[in-house]
Structure formats: structure tokens, C-alpha cells
């Protein structure tokens, strides 16, 4: 394993949601690390626990959610045991998040420049006098044309791609160590999507920042990430460097996911869907939550204590019958 100290380390995390219709075991034994200057993709279907992992790491989990096991270390800070004021200090400065649908994430009745200034002033990087100058500079850093004028624009006056750039400017204004991008390009056009992802990659490289990209699009993760963590029903089922993962996926689910993603060439017969759907996380589940959908399943798969093992150096898989 990597000797360096990771920026974000999620270790053996369990998260549950208490709901009226039962306890949802949203995450189980989730572990992953993100290092400086690295972009890690978390990939999975909707409901697989991607966003819950990210939100727990930021300490913004819904009150109904409870961490029942595990630890999260972010830049040396124990997130789960930190006080709310420490967390508030940390958010924005150490770690920032970009959400999907930027238009809803921005305040509709405050000019975008002011919203960036708010972040800067909250963390003491700007005073009332120089806030505007710094906000304009932040807008410039995300390649917004005519930043002086855009500073006074409201979100409704800007296009979706432009709003997402504002979100990025805001998230990066205090130079965080870690950026979590939760489906940053959902709802944007392909051309805008490419531009936004290029921008995130470029800025991350420039600042030697750690980045987590949460996406359901395996192709996009492949394109931009150094390492990919595949999640299924609240489990991390495989994690490996991108090239390695695509060259030899070990978990049957990863392989299926790749087959289900349409590629440029080939015909419809080359893509296959994945049978079944995610299991109901409120019910008692077998150790391997993919077992009901898996073709390689046999009885030994559901012996207790299913843990991740290292298939090749740096390539972890949680499966008893890997490919």
C-alpha cells in the first residue's frame, strides 16, 4: 500500500439510516483512500452509496443517518468525533464539494460574486474591502469570460455550465486539499461536460489537490480518474488503478458494468444489461450483496466475513470467486 499519508482515509465505515419502514444499511465496511494530486472515481448505480460516503466524509450526513462503525480521517482530523465548529472550519478550507444541478445549489437571490465572497470572508481569506477583487480573481481562475461583469450576475442569468463554473470557483476559493465532485456534470451538455471536467482536472493538477469524482458514468471515470472505486449496494466491491481495472476487472459486477456501458464502436448486441436490481437494503442481506444478481454465485460465496483482498498490488476486490 502507499506509504504517503492520504488526504482522505475512510476506514471500515458502516452507515445506517433509521426509517419508519426499517433500518437501511446504506454502507458496510467501506474503505478507501485519496492521496494528494490524485483523482479517484467512485462509480456505481444510483443507490449504491456513493453520495452517502462523500457526505459522511464531509460530516454533512442527514440526521437520520448514523455511523455505527469505522473512522474517517481528513487531513489529520478525525471527522466522526470532531465538534461541529471544527467541521465548519474544515469545510470550504480543507475540503469542498461540488454538487449536481448547480442551479439549485446556488442561492437564487444573491449575485454569484457575493456568494463567492461569502465563502472567502467566512474563512478569513478576504476582508470586506478586498472581497470583490478576490471573488473576481476566483471567477477568472475558472475561465469565466468577463469576470468583472459576471460578478454581479444572478444564477438565473447564467447558463448551466457557467453556474457549475461558479460552484467550482466557490469550492476552490479557499484552496482546499480535497475536492469532492458529486456528479458534477449531470444535466449538462456533452460539450459543456467535457469542458467542466477538463477544468476540474486542470485545476486539480495545478494545485496538487486530491479529488473525488462521484459518477455513474464508468466511461467518464475512466477518462479522468487515476483510480476507480466501484460500489454496489453499500459495499466497495473493487478498487484499482484505472488502466488496471479496465484491463482486468476482477469483480463480476465491474465486468458487467463495463459490458453495459455503450461504446463508440460495436453494435447493440455487444452491450449487456445487468440482471436484477439493487437489493433492498432494509432486509437482512448475505455477506455478498451482489450474490442474487451474480452468475458465478455458489454456496461458498456467502460464508461469513467476506473481506477485500489484494488481487495484484493496488488492486483490491471483495469477491470469493473473482474473475
Amino acid at each position, binding site marked *: 500500500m502507499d506509504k504517503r499519508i492520504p488526504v482522505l482515509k475512510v476506514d471500515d465505515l458502516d452507515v445506517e439510516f433509521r426509517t419508519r419502514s426499517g433500518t437501511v444499511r446504506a454502507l458496510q465496511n467501506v474503505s478507501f483512500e485519496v492521496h494528494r494530486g490524485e483523482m479517484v472515481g467512485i462509480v456505481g*448505480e*444510483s443507490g449504491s452509496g456513493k453520495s452517502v460516503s462523500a457526505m459522511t466524509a464531509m460530516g454533512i450526513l442527514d440526521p437520520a443517518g448514523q455511523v455505527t462503525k469505522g473512522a474517517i480521517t481528513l487531513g489529520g482530523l478525525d471527522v466522526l468525533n470532531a465538534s461541529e465548529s471544527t467541521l465548519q472550519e474544515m469545510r470550504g478550507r480543507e475540503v469542498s464539494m461540488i454538487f449536481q444541478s448547480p442551479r439549485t445549489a446556488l442561492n437564487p437571490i444573491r449575485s454569484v460574486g457575493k456568494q463567492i465572497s461569502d465563502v472567502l470572508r467566512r474563512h478569513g481569506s478576504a476582508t470586506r474591502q478586498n472581497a470583490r477583487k478576490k471573488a473576481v480573481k476566483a471567477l477568472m481562475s475558472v*475561465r469565466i*469570460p468577463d469576470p468583472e461583469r459576471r460578478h454581479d450576475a444572478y444564477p438565473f442569468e447564467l*447558463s*448551466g*455550465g*457557467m453556474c457549475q463554473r461558479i460552484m467550482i470557483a466557490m469550492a476552490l476559493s479557499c484552496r482546499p486539499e480535497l475536492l469532492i465532485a458529486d456528479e458534477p456534470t449531470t444535466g449538462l*451538455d*456533452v*460539450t*459543456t*461536460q*467535457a*469542458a467542466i*471536467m*477538463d477544468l476540474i482536472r486542470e485545476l486539480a493538477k495545478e494545485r496538487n489537490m486530491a479529488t473525488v469524482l462521484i459518477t*455513474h*458514468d*464508468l*466511461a*467518464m471515470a*475512466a*477518462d*479522468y480518474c487515476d483510480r476507480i472505486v466501484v460500489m454496489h449496494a453499500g459495499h466497495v466491491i473493487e478498487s484499482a488503478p484505472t488502466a488496471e481495472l*479496465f484491463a482486468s476487472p476482477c469483480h463480476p459486477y465491474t465486468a*458487467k*458494468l*463495463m459490458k*453495459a*456501458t*455503450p*461504446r*463508440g464502436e*460495436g*453494435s*447493440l448486441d455487444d*452491450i*449487456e*444489461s*445487468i440482471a436484477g*436490481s439493487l437489493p433492498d437494503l432494509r432486509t437482512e442481506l448475505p455477506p455478498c450483496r451482489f450474490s442474487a444478481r451474480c452468475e458465478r454465485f455458489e454456496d461458498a460465496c456467502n460464508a461469513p466475513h467476506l473481506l477485500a483482498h489484494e488481487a495484484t498490488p493496488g488492486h483490491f476486490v471483495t469477491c470469493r470467486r473473482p474473475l
Partner: protein
Amino acid sequence: MSKLLDVREIRKLYVLTGQGGSGNPFMRWVRARLTSAVDHTPVLHAVDGVSFSIDGGESLGLVGESGCGKSTLVGMLARLSDPTSGNIDFDGKDISEVPSKQFHDRPERTDIQIVFQDPHESLNPRFTAFDTIAEPLKRLKGITNKKELQEKVEAVAKQVDLPLQLLSRFPHQMSGGQKARVNIGRAVAVSPKLLILDEPTSALDVSVQAVILKLLVQLKQDLGMSYLFVSHDLNVVRLLCDRVIVMYLGQIVESGTAEDIFTSPQHPYTRALISAIPNTDPAGDLRVRLSGDPKSPIDPDPNACRFHGRCPMGEDRCSRTAPPKRIIGEGHYAVCHFADGSPESAGDSNG
């Protein structure tokens, strides 16, 4: 093959009133008396002179970014809104003259159906799957007999692989893939000749996307429908469509077979679109990237290329003369000064 749908020079313009009271005759009169400003009402060109055709049994892909007029065009073709000018010939008859409000009485209503975007949003939350599929059968086919209706709905459910026990469920009790099936079932229940699919899989997970796409291909074979497939996902378009048209700011900028569009795109916008597709095998940095936002569709300059300003190849003449339509090959044309192809000969307007 005969043309099922033939669209000629269709336009949808929205006159923008309410800006400084320009739509109000009294305010206009006041302004004319008090100022010497030229009276001008801004006009938004949502769809601006689009012509194309769909043959029987063909799938046509329609791609372009949001705001380029895809949905406006789809709305007009489905006869949910009226074009400002232009003709829509469907099965040999001009249907553009019938006002959209009266179109539901026309026999063509059953022939043109639409599968709306996002099955989570477009199903009536208070209708069970059965009600949703039964509705067009009742309204358009006039089936009132309960037993007959039941049989019909079950037949449709079988066609779209929807388990019969799900028919009594409400949308919130179904998964995304199941809702997509109901949505498709509702549209194909009246056996249309043309099915318009507005981003049918964009709200679905990849794991179910493949089944839905295969279902669509199967249905097309079984029912002999034509498809107009609107999508952001170019990989999906490539899998499903015979021909593709690319729209930019209300106009078609390139049209050709799916193979031509994806292997030898001529218009710089098409190139940018194709190189924006995330790729599982990173091919290096030969990619075309666009900067900036599209121009405003309000009062566009008729003597300039609408892509000028964002175009990586743009030069002076692009801002002075509207680009010509150039024929590149059999059924492949691009509207660009730089496309290498012969200029369109007079009289040949269908590319």
C-alpha cells in the same frame, strides 16, 4: 422506401413581448411619439428553417445541446405546438395546418406518439401502470369494454416485458426501468407509425439502459415503427440510429448516416460533440473543445454563421456570410464554410 415524415423549412419563432412593454400597442405608440427609436420587437428563433425526412422503418437521431431547439422541434412534430411556418407532411398528408389544440381528434394522433423524457416525472403519480397504459386506448381507440381493455393492456405489458403483477402499481412503487417500460407501453399501446423518443434512457442507470435499448429495437422490428430519437448520449445514438441530424441554435448543421457522422464529421460543432464523448480508452489530446456559450437565439444575424465565436476554425468570412450547405456525399451534408464538399446545386433541397 417511402417517406413517412417530411418536414420542410419548419420555423418556430417566439415574439418576445413584455420587454419594456414592446408588445403593448399603446406603449409602442407612446414610444414612437416620444422617441425616434426604431420600433423593433425582439424575436426568438427557436427553430429556424429545419428540413428533414424520416423513411418508414427508419430511426433518425437528433442531437444538439440544450437550448438548440430539439424539444421545440419535437413538440411541433408531435403536434403539441404549432409551427410559425413550414410544412409537416406525415404519410403524404400535410398535418401542419391543423391547430395543435384540435389535433387530438385527427386519425394521425394515434400514428405519432411520444415517449417523454424522465419516466419518474412524466408519469401521472395518481395513475397505476394499468391506468397509464389504458388511457390512450380509451381516449384514442375508444375502447370502453372493460374486458377488452384489460386484454389490450396486458398484451401491451407483455410487449414491453412488464410483469403483469406490476400493472396495479403506482409510479412510486416501481423502479426506474419499470417506469420506463410503462412510459414506452403507453406510447406504443395505440400502435403508432412514428415514435418520438425524447432522451428515453438519460434518467436510467447503465445496468437497465441496455435492456431498454434492446426493447426499443425489438419493438421497432415487431411493430414496424419509425423512430425519432432525441438524445444527449451520442454512444446510444450511434447504436440505435440509421441516420443522425445535428442541430445548433435552431438550425441543422450536419446530417448524414450515423456511420458518416461518427467517423467523418465535417462540421466543427459535430467534431466537438464527438470528441466530448467520454472514452474508456483515452485516445490522447486530439480533442476539439469548445469555449464559451452559444450565441443568443434572439434576433440572430442572418448573415453570419451561428457557431461563429465558439468555432475553433472561425475566421472573418464566417461573421459576414451565412455558411452554405455543402454536399459531402450520398445523404451527407454540412452547413459550414470549411466543409469540403460541393456546394448544393439549385433545386436540390433535401440533401
